């Protein structure tokens, strides 16, 4: 009986509030209809621009980025394996070989100085190499340049009196000086460079040669 009376009381209350509820419901229905029509036109625009019917809201985007960050922190992605360098590929193309060749460090060339004294040449005094130049940036893979020729041998070839100078059999491994050997493999002499004497010194060539043209001048 009490429930019946409560329902009766609610019924009176709802009858009073019913018009207001219906007005609000009709308002929401109209708002929904306008939103539907507006969304219909927007969806046409979204269709031709390739977007979704309901684009992602900024809050949803923040949430997605946050979840992706958490997921990435929980399961870190494995590092991609480095691709093995291509080696020993048989090819007949020289340019491809040069291209595929791994870049090498620039060869360090330490030019040797000529011994300045006879003792230095004969007793193998230590000849300090010149300080190496500053390392140049690694060049493009090019054919390996030939090392600079030994200054002694160059001296032999470039000397004006090259015909008079004895030919060296090999270079002394200690000071890179040409060494003369006989048939019994005995060291005969060590070539003595003359230095950079551009002037013509008559005394130096006084008893030097027995052949050739004598161009000495008389005082």
């Amino acid at each position, binding site marked *: 009986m009490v429930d019946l009376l409560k*329902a*009766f009381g*609610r019924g*009176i209350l*709802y009858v009073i509030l019913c018009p207001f509820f219906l007005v609000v419901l009709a308002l*929401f*229905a109209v708002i929904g209809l306008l939103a*539907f029509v507006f969304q219909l036109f927007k969806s046409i625009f979204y269709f031709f621009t390739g977007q979704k019917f309901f684009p992602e809201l900024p809050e949803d985007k923040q*949430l997605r980025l946050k979840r992706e960050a958490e997921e990435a922190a929980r399961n870190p992605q494995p590092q991609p394996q480095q691709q093995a360098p291509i080696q020993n590929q048989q090819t007949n193309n020289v340019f491809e070989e040069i291209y595929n060749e791994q870049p090498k460090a620039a060869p360090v060339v330490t030019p040797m100085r000529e011994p300045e004294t006879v003792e230095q040449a004969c007793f193998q005094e230590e000849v300090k190499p010149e300080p190496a130049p500053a390392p140049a940036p690694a060049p493009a893979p090019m054919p390996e340049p030939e090392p600079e020729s030994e200054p002694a041998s160059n001296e032999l070839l470039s000397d004006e009196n090259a015909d008079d100078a004895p030919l060296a059999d090999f270079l002394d491994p200690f000071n890179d000086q040409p060494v003369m050997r006989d048939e019994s493999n005995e060291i005969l002499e060590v070539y003595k460079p003359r230095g950079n004497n551009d002037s013509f010194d008559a005394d130096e060539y006084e008893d030097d040669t027995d052949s050739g043209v004598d161009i000495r001048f008389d005082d």
Partner: protein
Amino acid sequence: MNPALLIKMTENDKRVIIALLFIVIIIFVLIGVIGSIMIRTMKWQGKKCDTLVSDVVTNHIVTTPHQLRKYAAKKNIRQFIKQAWIGILIIIVGVATILIRNAIVKDWTYDPFNTTNGFGTLLFTWDFSDPEIYATFFGKWKVISDWPKLANQPHFAVEAIWSYIYVPCVVVGGTWYMIAAQAYLARTIRAIKLSKKVFEKSLDNFDQNTPTPPTNNQPVQQ
């Protein structure tokens, strides 16, 4: 003495008044029960709002009541469109049917609910215009007091086929749409309640005079 109290009622009048009183009570009780069911239904429909906004709230993307109401409004209108588009489509089909009929017949005054070539052919129709079914109370009030004569029995009419499509489509689509609108209203009310409740701070169980229990890092002073 008040003349209204001097009205002499017959035994038949008293029975009629008691019957009317019972009918009114039953009507109000039914309205109360229906209203309670509607409120319960709207609470159930409003729970969908929790699903829509819970992710951004629990992840602290939304931090103020204003942001929550704004975000919930966007989500609610999208949910409404998802729910209501089928109802709107059904209504459009019904309206298109009756428009096609009117264009074919070239009769734009057609009433789809009439009892001759409309949807009324499928319904029972009574003639309430017969004055013989009414009785006069207290000398001036006319109250129906007899069964009206049956004016139409359900029957199928071929020319009313258009209204057979139109009326069900409009009724079903309209009901569908109004239920979706009711759910939209329920979610909006729920969003307003949530915006007040989620960020609410309560000091009900807080007592500043109660000493704070020591933590593990702090030595206990004795």
